[in-house]
């Protein structure tokens, strides 16, 4: 199992932004099919992510849920005044999850959860109009979390555990809108840091009001990723004291914000289950991306994110003994404020339409499939806080349109 886990970590560690900021809400096919609700749904080991307090309610001794999604996400940008346009050419992201729950007794379960809640891969064409802000960025964070779930009373259980995060970042952009070497090649910098490890935690509770009605709450702590001594690689720098850039190291911090989820589920009848989740992601912590180079130069990039909410609605219908159908919808607020719309995380408010199914192949093994289509409104937006080489603040704006489409496949195994 360890081997499988490791190979998943290394082979599938790609992830992509499609929710607000660089949050990637794809932590369970069953939940995603229901609009990524799940804080109050006792359904599978996906609870390891959504609400570990619920693990103790799983019927089987061992439950495993694992899966992977393919995120096809593209952003288009254009400026009507100049006729410029650009499109990202993002590689498909592959966020994954692995959850295992083992019930020790009626009141106590332990588990392990591995998931990728944050990440971003945005790849614009090199030297596009916004290349002074970003050419490409790849951000990854893998959460590994041992869990415990304890039933305090018949109506209340609690759960949680420490989170180990390992992350990496690779970011390339041009140094300015115009600096080139003698042959006109744009001067650019790549910063790269990997193996950045930090710790966090999550805690949750599940309140079972009646057999059909549950209320859940889950809190995942903020984790500040400290990249230290990353590599900064400068390319196409002209030979002049006016551009004193040479390869060096850098320090930077990137916050993975805390998230609070509250929600409920209601078993309408034997066939129908309804769920509602509310997420609040505490993006307020992301004020600025400051890259401190070893030579003392600091690149400050104001972000000024604000806390953002997501409202999620889901439904499940047991069509036959073996087939369960799901559908959902969510409304996802962007943490990006007006004037701070940077093409590295070009996210405005979005709506997700989701659907999926589970098919019991055997009594122990089910295949979970989900599909999400994320719709963004076309938006006129700009990033107004880029400071150029002459200390002038230069806006970069235009019209953005994003779309994401996420098919995913998983398995649930019960023993």
């Amino acid at each position, binding site marked *: 199992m360890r081997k499988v886990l490791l190979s998943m970590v290394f082979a599938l560690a790609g992830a992509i932004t499609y929710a607000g900021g660089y949050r990637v809400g794809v932590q369970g096919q069953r939940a995603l099919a229901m609009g990524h609700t799940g804080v109050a749904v006792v359904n599978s080991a996906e609870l390891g992510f959504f609400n570990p307090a619920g693990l103790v309610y799983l019927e089987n001794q061992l439950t495993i849920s694992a899966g992977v999604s393919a995120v096809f996400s*593209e952003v288009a940008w254009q400026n009507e005044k100049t006729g410029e346009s650009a499109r990202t050419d993002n590689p498909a992201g592959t966020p994954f999850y692995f959850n295992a729950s083992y019930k020790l007794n009626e009141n106590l379960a332990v588990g392990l959860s591995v998931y990728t809640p944050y990440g971003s891969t945005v790849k614009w064409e090199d030297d596009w109009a916004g290349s002074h802000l970003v050419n490409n960025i790849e951000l990854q964070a893998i959460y590994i979390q041992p869990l415990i779930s304890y039933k305090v009373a018949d109506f209340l259980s609690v759960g949680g555990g420490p989170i180990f995060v390992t992350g990496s970042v690779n970011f390339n952009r041009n140094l300015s809108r*115009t600096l080139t070497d003698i042959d006109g090649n744009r001067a650019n910098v790549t910063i790269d840091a990997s193996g950045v490890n930090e710790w966090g935690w999550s805690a949750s509770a599940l309140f079972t009001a009646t057999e059909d009605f549950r209320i859940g709450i889950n809190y995942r702590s903020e984790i500040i990723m400290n990249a230290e001594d990353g590599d900064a690689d400068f390319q196409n720098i002209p030979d002049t004291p006016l551009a004193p850039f040479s390869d060096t190291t850098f320090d930077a911090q990137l916050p993975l914000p805390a998230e609070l989820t509250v929600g409920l589920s209601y078993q309408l009848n034997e066939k129908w289950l309804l769920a509602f989740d509310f997420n609040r992601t505490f993006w307020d912590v992301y004020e600025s991306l400051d890259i401190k180079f070893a030579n003392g130069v600091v690149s400050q990039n104001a972000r000024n994110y604000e806390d953002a909410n997501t409202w999620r609605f889901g439904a499940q219908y047991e069509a036959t003994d073996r087939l369960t159908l799901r559908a959902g919808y969510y409304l996802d607020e962007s943490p990006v404020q007006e004037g701070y719309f940077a093409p590295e995380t070009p996210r405005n408010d979005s709506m997700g339409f989701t659907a999926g199914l589970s098919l019991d192949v055997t009594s122990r093994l089910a295949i979970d499939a989900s*599909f999400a289509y994320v719709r963004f409104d076309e938006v006129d937006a700009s990033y107004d806080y880029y400071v150029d080489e002459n200390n002038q603040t230069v806006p970069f704006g235009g019209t953005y349109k994003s779309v994401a489409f996420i098919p995913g496949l998983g398995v649930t195994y019960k023993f």
Partner: protein
Amino acid sequence: MKNYIKYIGILALGMVACEPEFDNPVDEQDAYSNGEADFSNYVALGNSLTAGYADNALYITGQENSYPNILAQQFAKVQETQEFRIPFMADNAGGLLFGGQPNPNFRNRLVLSIIDGDTLPKVYTGMAPTTEVANSLSGYFNNMGIPGARSYHLLAPGYGNIEGLGADPTTANPYFVRFASTPGTTVVADAVAQNPTFFSLWIGNNDVLGYATSGGVDENEITSLVMFQGVYSTIVNSLLESGATGGVLINIPNVTDVPFFTYIPTSPLDPTNPQYGPNIPTLNQTFALLNPALLALRGVTEETPGESEFSIEFNPAGASPVIVRDESLPDISQQLKTVLQDNGYDEATATIYASQFGQVRQATSEDLIPLTSSSAIGALNQERFEELVEMGLPQSQAGLLATNGITYPLEDQYVLTPSEQEKISARTEEFNEHIKTVAEQNGLAHVDAAGLLSKVATEGISFDAGTVTSDFVRGGAFSLDGIHLTPRGYALVANKIIEEINKTYNSEVPTVNIGNYGTVTPNNQVGN
């Protein structure tokens, strides 16, 4: 299983729908209108400004940022266009080779270097030039801007004939030699052969500029108005007869709006300069003896020394003007010699002073001193030094008397006097009058580049990251030669051209963001 198939179908649909689409995508052909113009085959005619010449050289990135190439890229956003072919140089160094040999008149580009606080542009030496003039390019080219070309050159057979380069005077232009279709062709013939649907013409600058940049030494260097009018109309008619449905005519900027003439102040002499400052007392003593004679002979009586440009005095505490030879002044050397001899100067000294100061005054704020004078000012005039030594002066004294701009007047080529400026601006105005008339007669778009660059020079033009001005090196509009534009400057011109084309032809060609275009290139790999 049926359900499966249904979902796979939805999946496939999603895949197709994955590309984000705008309500009004700018990259579709109907996003903008070409109006009554047909930009499908655009040909640009002109001189260095059209070629994308900058930093005293033609090189690849300059050509890429030429205003015709910027226009062609914007035209391509409006309608389907042919490839805009450019006779690219072989490198970004910029120098020309003639039979493998470099030529001092076609050196590498200038770059902005900072060496021990010296920030005057210098010649890039990071690579040797590789553009061989004899390697002629095949096919026709849409950008027919030819550095150095005057109006009448565009109609001159043999202007692209390599044989003509060796003639005296030269009858060919190495830049046209590189891409002329045949040795005997003309620029206009090669343009017409491409059946352009749209053209631009920006010619005439060198017809006055050659006179101006050489400090106005030879008045014949200005093309006559009659010649210009005839040639200009012929060029435009040829292009229209070839089937072009539209075009744009760009007028001639006032050469005095460029930093080449405005950067060097007329009072450049700095008393803190160790080569000059310590000599001020001696200089003033010497001129104090001469000034009464100079003033008297010029008919100035009431002035105290220092208040007339005819009495020469240097300020020990501040900047002083250079002394210049002004050919519009009556030559008083004969009288001066007599007066000096009457006042006890020996004949040899009187002769020297008389020949040196017979047509001299200190520069005034009305004069313009070309950038090319910067290295001459305060330097020893070797020729004069040798003359003086020959006349029997000791070397130290000869040296003192042969310092350019201080004791030896700046020669005519190093200064543009008000009367010379007057000639240039009068002819420029006449040329521009004709250009406007031709545009009106033929319904062509007309671009007032003179007005544009005058605005850049006086108040500047703001853009998303500041203001573009004509300040040398820093202003952003002019390249390091002080005459030709930077990519940002050319983009500014391109926007103005687009504006006028849109007005004339009811088209909707989008403009560019000039902030995305660079200015001067810094590099410390330089020589002299």
